C-alpha cells in the first residue's frame, strides 16, 4: 500500500470539508473494496476520509404508509437506510425484515461475515461494482440516492461499470425507497469471488409497476431488463419468465462463464427471485 493520510469525519459536512482540502481524497465507507485495491497498489488516494464514526449516517428508518394501521408488510412503507449502515445491520434489522425482507436477505448474502460487518450500503452504491448486489436492488426498487447536495433517482444514478452520477466532492448520506408489494432477489455467486455472476432483482411497487434489474451479467454494469419486466407485468410468475428470450448480447464473457451461460443464469435467477 502506498502511504496515505487517514482522517476521521463525524459528519458528512466534516467529510466534505476534508475532501475539499485534499487534491486526491477518497471517502472510506467500510473500505471492503478500496482497502484491498490500495493494498494491491492499484489505488493511491492521498487522503482517506473515514466515515465509520458518522453516527447520523447510520441506521434504518421505516415510515408507515397508513398512519393508524398496524405495520403490515403490504408494501409502500418508506424505508431510509443511512449510507454508513453495514450489510450486517441491514441483514439483521427485524423491523426491516417485516416490511422488506428481500433487502435483508440480499444484504445477508453479500461477501462473508467480515465484509458484512465493515461494508456499507453507501460504500457499495458509490463504488457501483458491476457485480455488486445493492445496485440491482436500488434500481428495481426505484430508490432515491441522497447526497450531501441533492437527491438522485436510481434510474439516473447508475451510469455503467464503476460509474455513477456522483460529483467528485459529493457524499452519499442515505438511500430511500418504498417497500415493494412483492420483491425477490436471485443471485448466482461467482465461485471464486462470490460476487454476483448474475443477480436478478424483481419488484412490484404499490402502484403495480414491475421492475427487473440485472447485476453481474452485463458488460456495462447493472441494468433493467425490458423483456422480463414486460413478461412479469403481464403475469407475475416463474412460467412467464420461461417464455422470455434472454439474449446474450451485451453480456459478459470471462474465465468463469460465457455470455450464453450468463443469459441462462439471468432466466434461472429471475425464476428463483420469484419463488
Amino acid at each position, binding site marked *: 500500500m502506498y502511504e496515505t493520510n487517514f482522517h476521521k469525519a463525524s459528519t458528512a459536512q466534516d467529510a466534505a470539508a476534508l475532501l475539499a482540502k485534499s487534491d486526491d481524497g477518497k471517502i472510506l465507507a467500510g473500505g471492503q473494496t478500496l482497502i484491498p485495491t490500495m493494498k494491491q497498489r492499484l489505488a493511491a488516494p492521498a487522503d482517506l476520509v473515514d466515515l465509520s464514526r458518522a453516527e447520523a449516517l447510520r441506521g434504518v428508518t421505516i415510515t408507515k404508509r397508513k398512519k393508524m394501521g398496524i405495520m403490515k408488510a403490504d408494501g409502500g412503507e418508506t424505508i431510509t437506510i443511512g449510507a454508513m449502515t453495514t450489510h450486517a445491520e441491514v441483514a439483521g434489522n427485524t423491523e426491516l425484515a417485516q416490511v422488506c425482507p428481500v433487502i435483508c436477505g440480499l444484504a445477508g448474502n453479500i461477501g462473508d461475515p467480515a465484509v458484512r460487518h465493515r461494508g456499507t450500503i453507501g460504500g457499495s452504491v458509490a463504488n457501483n461494482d458491476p457485480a455488486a448486489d445493492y445496485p440491482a436492488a436500488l434500481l428495481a426498487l426505484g430508490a432515491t440516492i441522497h447526497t450531501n447536495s441533492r437527491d438522485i433517482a436510481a434510474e439516473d444514478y447508475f451510469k455503467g461499470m464503476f460509474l455513477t452520477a456522483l460529483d467528485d466532492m459529493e457524499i452519499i448520506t442515505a438511500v430511500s425507497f418504498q417497500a415493494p408489494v412483492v420483491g425477490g432477489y436471485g443471485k*448466482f455467486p461467482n*465461485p*471464486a469471488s462470490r*460476487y454476483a455472476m448474475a443477480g436478478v432483482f424483481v419488484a412490484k411497487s404499490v402502484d403495480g409497476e414491475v421492475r427487473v434489474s440485472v447485476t453481474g451479467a452485463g458488460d456495462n454494469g447493472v441494468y433493467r431488463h425490458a423483456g422480463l419486466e414486460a413478461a412479469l407485468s403481464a403475469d407475475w410468475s416463474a412460467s412467464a419468465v420461461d417464455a422470455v428470450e434472454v439474449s446474450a448480447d451485451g453480456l459478459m464473457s470471462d474465465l*468463469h*462463464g460465457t455470455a450464453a*451461460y450468463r443469459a441462462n443464469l439471468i432466466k*434461472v435467477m429471475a425464476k428463483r427471485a420469484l419463488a
Partner: protein
Amino acid sequence: MSEGIGARVLRKEDKRFITGKGRYTDDIVEANQAYAAFVRSPHAHARIIAIDTSAAMAIEGVETVLMGPELVADGIGNIICGWGVTSKDGSAMNMGAWSALATDKVRYVGDAVAIVVADSKSIAKLAAEAVVVTYEELPVVVGSVQALAKGAPQLHDNAPGNLIFDWEIGDLAPTDAALATAAHVTEMDITNNRLAPNPMEPRSAIATFNEAEDHYTLYTTSQNPHVARLVLSAFYNVAPEHKLRVIAPDVGGGFGSKIYIYPEEIACLWAAMKSGRSIKWTSDRTEAFLTDAHGRDHVSTAKIGFDKDGMIVGLKVDTKANLGAYMSLFSSAVPTYLYATLLSGQYNIANIYCNVQAVYTNTVPVDAYRGAGRPEACYVIERLMETAAREMGMDPSELRAKNFVTSFPHQTPVIMAYDSGDFAANQKQAQDAADVAGFAARKAEAASRGKLRGLGYSNYIEACGIAPSAAVGSLGAGVGLWESAEVRVNPVGTIEILTGSHSHGQGHETTFAQIVAERFGLPTENIQIVHGDTDKVQFGMGTYGSRSGAVGMSAIVKAMDKVEAKVKKIAAHVLEAGEDDIVIEGGAVKVAGTDKQMLWHEVGLAAYTAHNIPAGMEPGLKESAFYDPTNFTFPAGCYICEVEVDPDTGVTEVVQFVASDDFGTIINPMIVEGQVHGGIAQGIGQAMLENVVYDDAGQQLSASYMDYTMPRADDLPNYSVHHASTTCPGNPLGMKGCGEAGAIGSPPAVINAITDAIGNNNLSMPATPAAVWTALQDVRSKLAAE
C-alpha cells in the same frame, strides 16, 4: 500404550499454531535488517534493452539495486534441474539457462529482473516501481501444444521447437499390436489443468552475511533446508556449504512449492553479501501466483484396449507436459518417472507405452505439486476405466475388479514393482460405506427434486517414500533419496530426535514422538523433535513425496535400534544379566522373568556418568542412522464420489465422498484422516474449482482469489474415511505414506461422478458450473437432433 503407534494423540504443535505463537520466517527480525523487493517483468516474453535505476537509487532509504549481469559476473550459478531425463533418441534434455535475475531476456510475467534493497518494505516497493526497464516485446506462447507447433515463438536457443525432451517408456510395437487386435478400444483426450499451490504462508527469506565471522545464515520457507544449502553452495556459489546455515522454522504449508530453491533466496543471499545488510523478502499473494512453481498442466491422448472378456490388453498414452519458462528443480521427473511409471494403475496390463514431450512456454515454471505426476497418471487410467466400462456396458467396479493385480510382488511394464496391496478389499469397503447398492434409489429421489445424481469411482495407486538412491540415480536423479536421523538420549532419560525430514503441517512433532514412545515406553512429553536447521541436524533430504513416514521414520527406527542395543548392553552389565535377557517395557529396562530392572533414566545416567559401563564402551547415549529405502511404497485405495447436479445452473454438489485407503501401518489415525481430508479438498479443488488461466499475451487472468477458486468449507462434503491396510514389506514400520493420496485419488472420482450424472463424458477439469451446464446443453442439443 496410549501414546504409541495407533493412538489418536493430539498434535503437540497445535498449541502454538492455534494460538498464533508459531514462529515463521516473516516473524523473525534480524539486527540491521533491510527489505527486498523485486523488479519483475510485466511481459511474458521480451528482450531487455536497458535498465535505468537512477530514479530508484535517488529515493531516500534505498540501499542498493542489483541486476543480472552483476550477479553473473560474481559467479552466481544458473538455477539447476536436479534430474536429468534422456530423450528416446539418447540425447540429453535441452535445458535453457535460468539466471536468478534475468540478463538478456524475460520469459514469463513475474520473471525477476532486479532486486531492490531498502530500509523498509514500502520504500523497497516504491523503488522497485521506479526502476525503468526498457523491453522489446517478443511473441508469446502459453500452451504446450501451441509451443510445439511449427513457427511457435522460441524461448531458449538450445531448445529448438521449445522441446525440452521427447521421452518414452514401455514397448511401442507390442502395445500397438495389442491395441490393433483388441475387442474394444477406448480413446480419450485428457487434459490435466494447471494449479497454483497456494500454501497459507507465502514464501519468505531472510539472508544475513556476517563479515567478521565469514558466515551466512538463511531463514527460508523450505521443505528441505539441507538440500537448499547444498544447492545454494555447490551450484549457485552464493556461500560455501560449511559457512552457510539454512533454517526453515515453522513453515505454513508447502504442497511441493517449497521444495525448490527460487531466484529470490539466491538474490537475497547474494545481496546480503554485497550490501552488508540482513535482507528480508516476503512474497505477497499476487507474487505467489506469479512466481511459486505451478502444478500439473498435461495434455494427453490415451488409448486402452480390452479383449472380449473385458481384460486389458494394452495402454498407450501420449502426453505433452508444459514445464513453463524454465526447468525447476524436479520438473523433469514429475511428468516422467513420477507419472508414466504409475500408468498401470491397480491393473494387470501386459503392454504399456507412453511418450512424453516436455515443453517450454511463457508461463510460470511447473514442478511437483501434491501428488506430482501420480495425480496425472491416476486421472488418465481412472477416466479411461470408467469410460471403457460405460462404452462396454459393464459395471465400472466390476471391470476394474477383474483386472486387479492380486499377487505381489507385481512387476508392471513401466518400472514399478508393486510390493503389497489388497485392491478388492479397499473397493469392497468403499462400496459398503457408500451404499452403492442404494444408489439407484437415491438417483430416483434426486430426480424427483429435479437434480441429476451421479456416482464415480477412482481406484488409485501411487508411489511414495521416494526412493532407493541407486534406483533414482540410475534414472537420472542428481541426489540420493535416503533420510537421516539422530536419537539423543539425555542423561535424565528424555530424548531429542533430530530428523532430516521437515514438518510444514504434517505433524511430525507428534507422530515421530509416538514411535519413540512406543519403542521405549516413554510419554511423548519426554520426546522432542528437532528439524529444519542445518546447524542442528547433520543432513536430510526433506519432506515431499509422502516420504517422512516410510523413509524419515525408518531412519529414526534404525537409530533407535542402535540405542536399544547399547541400552541393553549397559543394563546387562549393571544388572549382571545376559544381553539377550534384557527387555524394555513401560519405561523400564528389565531382566526378563525377574524383578531386576533399571528405570529408563537410570540407564541414561549410567551411560553419561560412565562409572559403570562395559569395558571399552564409549560413554554417552546418542546414535544416528541413514536409511535408504529398498523400494517405493505403494499406497492405494478406492474412492467413491456421489454428486448432484442442478441442470438449470450446472452447480454440482458433492453429496457423498467415501475413501478407503491402504496406507500400511498408521501411527496416528487422527493425523492421517486430516491428511486425507486435506488431500481430497485439494483434489475436489482441482476437479471442480481451481484453474490457472493465461490469456494469449501470457498474463495470468486468475492471479488473485477474486478469480482463482480456492476450495472453501461450503464447497466440500463431509468425508467418509476408512482404512483397509496391508503392511508394507519394504520398511521396518510397514508404512506406505498418506500425504498425497487424497489429492491423487479424488479428481477422477469426481469427474466420473459428474459425467455419470449429466450423461456427457466430454467434460474437462475444473468442472465449474459453467462447464457442467455447457456439457449438459451439448447433450440436450444432441438428443434434440436425434
